[in-house]
């Protein structure tokens, strides 16, 4: 009976935390829809710095427009922030990690850690995606624009999904390792 109650409490806490996290994710998505480029500088600036570093280009920032790279002829603005990826990754990590944590404080601690980890991975994933898109731009004269748009979109999906699934598998693998070690120790 006690174990059942404990299980129920644990499950409800997990569900509440997951619901809370998903609410945060939904709020971020909503905020993204309402926001301007200026509001998203926290995520755009590091991506832009990495692009500048990788491609040796210099950008000019224009309010409400974004970072314009004249040498690359690209614009990094609100639509490139990677918020969709962040929301998805954050949701996936929350649902994977929170249920396997043992104590409530540990679970609560997990939330900001997952947030920060998701943020860092998003910036890296977005940088890789934009780098690949820049590579694809060199074929702009050879390929019809409609095909180039499709390739740009498909390339973005491929890179994001690869990183998402790699992260998923890595977390899965680590959580199994932790579980096994825990099982052995007890």
């Amino acid at each position, binding site marked *: 009976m006690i174990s059942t109650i404990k299980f129920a409490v644990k499950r409800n806490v997990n569900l509440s935390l997951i619901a809370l996290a998903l609410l945060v994710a939904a709020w971020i*998505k909503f905020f993204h829809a309402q926001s301007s480029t200026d509001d998203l500088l926290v995520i755009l600036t590091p991506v832009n710095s990495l692009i500048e570093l990788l491609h040796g280009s210099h950008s*000019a920032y*224009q309010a409400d*427009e974004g970072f*314009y790279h*004249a040498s690359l*002829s*690209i*614009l*990094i*603005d609100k*639509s*490139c*922030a*990677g*918020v*969709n*990826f962040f*929301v*998805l990754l954050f949701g*996936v990590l929350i649902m994977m990690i929170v249920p396997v944590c043992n104590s409530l404080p540990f679970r609560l601690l997990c939330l900001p850690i997952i947030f920060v980890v998701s943020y860092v991975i998003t910036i890296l994933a*977005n940088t890789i*995606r*934009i780098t690949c*898109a*820049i590579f694809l*731009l060199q074929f*702009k*004269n050879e390929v*019809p*624009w*409609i095909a*180039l*748009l499709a390739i*740009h*979109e498909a390339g*973005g*999906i491929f890179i*994001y*999904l690869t990183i*998402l*699934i790699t992260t998923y*598998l890595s977390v*899965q*693998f680590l959580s*199994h*390792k932790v579980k*096994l070690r825990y099982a052995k120790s007890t």
Partner: protein
Amino acid sequence: MQSLLNPRWLFVLSSAPVAILLFVQYGSYDIIESQLSKESITLWIRFGILLVALWVIHIAFALWQILKRQRLTWIYGVVALLLYIPLLYFYQMALDDLIPRNIPRWMLSEDTVWYAGSFIMPTLMHALIVIMVDLTHHAEKRKPWISFAIAVFIPVSWYLFLQFIFPLWQRVERSFFNEHVLIVFMITSVIIFLFFLMRGIYIISVKRSGFLQKYKLVWKILFVVCFPLAGLYVNNYEQWMIFGDFRNKWFFILAGLNGVTACLPALDQKNYRLILFLVRSITFTYILYFFLVFLPYLPFSIIAVIAIGLGFLMLTPLMALIIQSKMLSEDFSYLKKYHPGKTVIALFITGAIVLPLALTWSFLKDKQTLDNALKYVYEPDYSKTKENRINNTGLATVLDHVKENKDRRMGFNRQTPFISSYYNWLVLDNLTLSEQKITQLEKIFFGSPSQDSLPDLSFNTDKNISITHTIVSSVYDNKQQSWKSIVELEITNKNPFQAEYVTTFTLPTGTWINNYYLWINDQKVEGILAEKKAATWIYQQITSFRRDPGILYYLTGNRIAFRVFPFEAMQTRRTSLELLHKEPAIFHLDGHIISLGNEAQREIKKEITSQDGNFVYIPASIKNTLPLTNRKACYYFIMDCSAGKKDLSAMYDQLVRRFIADKNINPQHCKFILSNTYSILYDNLDNLPAALASTEFSGGFFVERSMEKILFRAVDEVSNTYPVMIVVTDSMNNAIVTKSLSDFSNSIPESDCFFALSTTGKLTPHSLVVNPKEPLQDTIGINDTYHVVAWPNAVHPQAYLRQNGEPSIILKQTLIQPTALPGQSTGWDAGLVLHGQWMSHILHPEKTDEMWLSLVRNSFAAHIMTPVTSFIVVENEAQRKVLLKKQEQVLSAKKFLDLGEETRMSEPDMWLLMLGACLVLLYRRKHLKKFLSPRQTN
């Protein structure tokens, strides 16, 4: 057909079209909302709620059926028909309230009224098929002729009813009840007719023996060969084109091919069946296309059968689709015995996309040809010595296609359903080519007879409507170091009828317009700065409906067009312009002298360099101090080498030699251009006979391009000579000059003239700026001497300027990379940068794709009008929304053109990512488990 009972079809055939309908209708509602009465809004909301409720119920029902693993039954079909037909019926009845007649039709898409029928029809047809299939058990044992007999009985009985009973009915007093009874009765008959017709075909298609099976080939030839070809013939007969333009030969070829493959026997040979299956898959798309085209007309088929017997041809796509689906299904079952199911499905998909891909490929080729031709004419690279030739045959085909797409006459649609829309979207970015542009392309590339373009009546000013009062107030802004002047105008219409005020004026150099107001019903309404094409389009639409717009935009150079509409008889209206200028200036507006700033104050004593360092403003006071000089003339002979002028080539050389001898011109100072569609420049006059002998005399005499190349060269390579252009032709009327060349007026500060040398040796001067094709009355000599000033000095001049007591703006280099406005640039300084960027764009139109968006964006950012933007005052919110929508369309069309020039690095959509993640995880679930399981056991 049994597979259509699977509830998953509801998502494809019902939920998706209704979702699109909701989306499209919301878009229409959003635009016209501000123009609707309360009652209409309530009606829109009610229909919206009803449709959303039906949509949700449909999805919930589909999910329920899937979870319960139940197939759809005839009960579903009946309920769906009972729900959607009344909805459609009431929608059509309420259409006049939903979109009242006072809403201008240009605000909405032309097909808005058809959307509801088109998007709900798949649901209705599916529901009918579900009823038919579910109620036709043991179809192979049934007799098809009974179904056909009932189907035939219905139009026949209607015919008799209309001939004998309906005339009596008309004597009965018309009432709401009996009027609707007739329509409801008609709808019911249509359903029963289609039900029995489809049932008859279905029974034939599943029968394995019997009379009809024995003569299968005969009715196959009838249904899939004769009827489709007859249908196409009847539709195109006498250019009726009732259902669209299907005159292209490919429609007939594919109809024939489809018929032949459908009639081929199903032999027991796997390779033969494989090829047959592939070809049938290819032509299946063709028959599916016609089924979709005719789907909205199916309910009217019975009327067509009653009215004209040939109306049954409207049912051909439906019948052919059922027959061919059945054949494909049989082929599929046969091939599955020898090949994996997935391979056969892949083969079907490959076949099915052949025609759409071929169509897309052909359209993309059209797009490429059209883009190249448009780029050559409107975005040329003046620095190129050799032009890439355009494929004239391909271009002729594209222009024919565009003209056919534009043409709607006699109420019948000359467009090809869906395909024309696809063509407009893919090739023309949903915009269109104006008649003027089509004519120009034909003149330039094919040398079509050069009709002088009609005089632009839109700028014929009416003397009875003019400015009656002006107030100018100028304030010097110490922070900006520039003036801000407000020019308030009172305009009066002295006509006894409604009229439009139209005028043009030239702004002084270094003066920019940064706001515009129009008083509407005593309210001062501020103008919207919008993209020029979108703004002029909306102005033309609004003026046809007698509303209150006002508009300002650049023509060429510093010339501005200014229009206000409407003025009632004897009405006086107020409007005002806000101008930014660096120093006092004067200009003429409709006979009034407008003095900006205070002449006595604020004279500038130094040159002003723009924030980005690319442009220099030289005030008149500084220009007066620059050293005077006179340059030598360099003569450019532009030879007419257009189609049909080959005979003149023999006399060209003699003509030019005699001319330079008469005028005592040194041949070393002469160059020549062979001009037709293309312009080829030769630096040595001695090469003239050889060049004329080897050139091809074809296309139009595009003299404008030759002149632009010379003018560009004059700016790009500053030298101590200036060009004198002499056009050698038997008729200047033959020359193609599409616009004034005033944008290039700074290129030759010496003179705005060029000369025409006729084959009789007569020399006449022409203006580059005003009506270039008309000869000037002035006596201007070819050897006249002109004085200009050198900047910054005579020893190392970077530019030569006209000595006219006015300020000038100089580009330090002709090609400026498109950038955002420098951070500190606001007000007049921003205007200088914008003007400089525009000057650079004129010299480098080949960079339009890169520069255009920047130019529009910078104009918006600085809130200063430039030649790519326009100030417009609109009357209401609905017009503003349409303007913004049109602007978005124009901007996005160009955005595609400049893909890769300033590409947004947009991330994929959320739903695409989620879909991708779900698919990958579902597919790899087992593999993931395997992948993880060894680690679990470790």
